[in-house]
């Protein structure tokens, strides 16, 4: 079990986070760049001192700013950290990189089975400069696994890798974390990466944990308008005393009052997006973006859509409202222009 409760000062704000990650659990720490995600990992790894904090890993107290004060140095923490830059030692072969950790003394069979699991067996004699980005990440991951770390931190490790490689590596890490039963944290600003990896999603913004929950729960029921913005809600449509959050991918054409909030607006722009279309719709003062399977009407035309089961937020405050205003589910807006 990883149990961290820390406060660390950054230039613009203070990171205040308390979280627990169970053995074998995968937590994704999701938030915009500069939210304090990496800082949190570095504090747990012992690379950055917290102003106040208590960190325990597998029953060992790593940091305690309250008496009895404790600050275990990074080399004794057994925290595995994989960053975007895999950090392979360029003067050592892949084999020597894999076996670098003093705690790593794998038998030839163990080394070979891990290398084959990671798909790097033919590369054992190669130097890191010869490896592709994906191969280097696999070697770095193998190095952490052979070091027998008590926890695994992945700090935006897939940036710069192509989508299929990201997926393969995500699945690989997920299965290895489960097999080794260590707590794992993935730091990312890509929601899709976080969802593909995590059992639990924690949303961090300006040093504060805004919401922690199952990935679908956080996305479908964001606790605040800010969380909604971070997880991809692009439209916020006034609905009485509340505001409904509209996620572009949770909009269907047509009026289906029993499935969500029916909105009619003017198409202001549309463009191809992936295998479908994306349209900007103006309803009253609000502008929202919708992802649609079929081509939307031309600009200037009226268009009715249903935002599926949208979350509602208090209009003034940042607190989630209990439900749609006035108990009604359909709330056709004034048509602009």
């Amino acid at each position: 079990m990883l149990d961290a409760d820390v406060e660390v000062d950054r230039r613009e704000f203070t990171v205040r986070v308390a979280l627990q990650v169970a053995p074998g659990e995968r937590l994704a720490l999701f938030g915009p760049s500069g939210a304090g995600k990496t800082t949190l990992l570095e504090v747990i790894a012992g690379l950055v001192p917290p102003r106040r904090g208590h960190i325990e890993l597998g029953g060992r107290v790593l940091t305690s700013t309250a008496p009895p004060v404790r600050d275990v140095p990074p080399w004794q923490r057994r925290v595995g950290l994989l960053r975007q830059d895999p950090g392979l030692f360029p003067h050592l072969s892949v084999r020597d990189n894999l076996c670098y950790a003093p705690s790593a003394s794998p038998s030839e069979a163990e080394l070979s089975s891990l290398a084959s699991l990671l798909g790097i067996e033919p590369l054992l004699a190669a130097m890191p400069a010869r490896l592709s980005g994906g191969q280097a990440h696999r070697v770095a991951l193998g190095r952490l696994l052979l070091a027998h770390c008590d926890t695994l931190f992945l700090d935006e490790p897939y940036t710069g890798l192509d989508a299929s490689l990201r997926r393969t590596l995500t699945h690989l890490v997920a299965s290895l974390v489960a097999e080794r039963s260590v707590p794992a944290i993935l730091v990312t600003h890509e929601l899709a990466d976080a969802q593909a990896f995590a059992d639990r999603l924690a949303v961090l913004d300006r040093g504060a944990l805004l919401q922690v929950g199952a990935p679908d729960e956080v996305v479908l029921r964001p606790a605040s308008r800010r969380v909604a913005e971070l997880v991809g809600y692009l439209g916020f449509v006034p609905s009485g005393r509340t505001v409904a959050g509209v996620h572009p991918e949770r909009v269907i054409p047509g009026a289906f009052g029993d499935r969500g909030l029916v909105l009619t607006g003017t198409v202001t722009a549309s463009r191809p997006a992936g295998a479908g279309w994306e349209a900007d719709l103006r309803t009253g003062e609000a502008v929202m973006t919708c992802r649609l399977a079929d081509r939307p009407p031309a600009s200037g035309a009226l268009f009715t859509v249903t935002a599926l089961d949208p979350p509602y937020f208090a209009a003034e405050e940042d607190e989630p409202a209990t439900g749609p205003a006035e108990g009604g589910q359909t709330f056709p807006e004034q048509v602009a222009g």
Partner: protein
Amino acid sequence: MAGTGIIWLALLGPVIALFTHLSWHAITKSLTAPGALDPLLISVESGLVTLGVLFVICTPLAWTLARGKLPFPRVWETGVLCSLLLPPLVIGLLLVFLVGPYTPIGSLLAHLHQSATNTFLALVIAEVYESAPYYILGAQSAFAGVEPRLEQQAGLLGDRPRRVFRRVTLPLAAPGLAMSLSIAWARAMGAFGAVVIIAYNPMGIPLQIFTTLQETGLASALPYALVLLVVALPLPLAAYIWSARAGRRRRG
């Protein structure tokens, strides 16, 4: 290509002049005289001791400077630059105030039956002072080229700082350190200004060239310059070759 060749030849001018003004007769006459090669031995020995001292003392300093962990880093760097900017002759004169016989260090050495004037120790001291800034600045740059994230990663994998230095920092900086050491070696082998003040004896090759020039003229002095070149060259050359090989190995 042609431009590079011209510049290269221009830089080699003095060496070419050396070879064109040397006669086989002068070489055999100068170098076969009794004790003629003693200065060579002195130079090589003092040069090697100087390199050892520089490596042990100045390597940690260069690493600390490179990592910028010292307060007021510019002050520390200016200190190194000062000893680089002072002419070697002036360094020699100032060393008299520092380690001469009537100084506290001189008295301490006398107490230990040693002296830092006209001894092998004095020669090494002079060579260390003349070459140290070159090594420190080169080594600092070599260490600065080592990615701190790699040292951090080695620490997270379980290595204590000393072990990180030995297993990651030092091997990665090694080609740059080797080049810096070879520059320091060249400075030490050719050290003259400070040496002539505090270590006239035992005589190394640069002083041998100077005294031979004064006593018997240029023709007899030049063979010693050839010896200096031949003896001083292999170490930097080996450093170049080794650095290039290390680079190739890393590139796979």
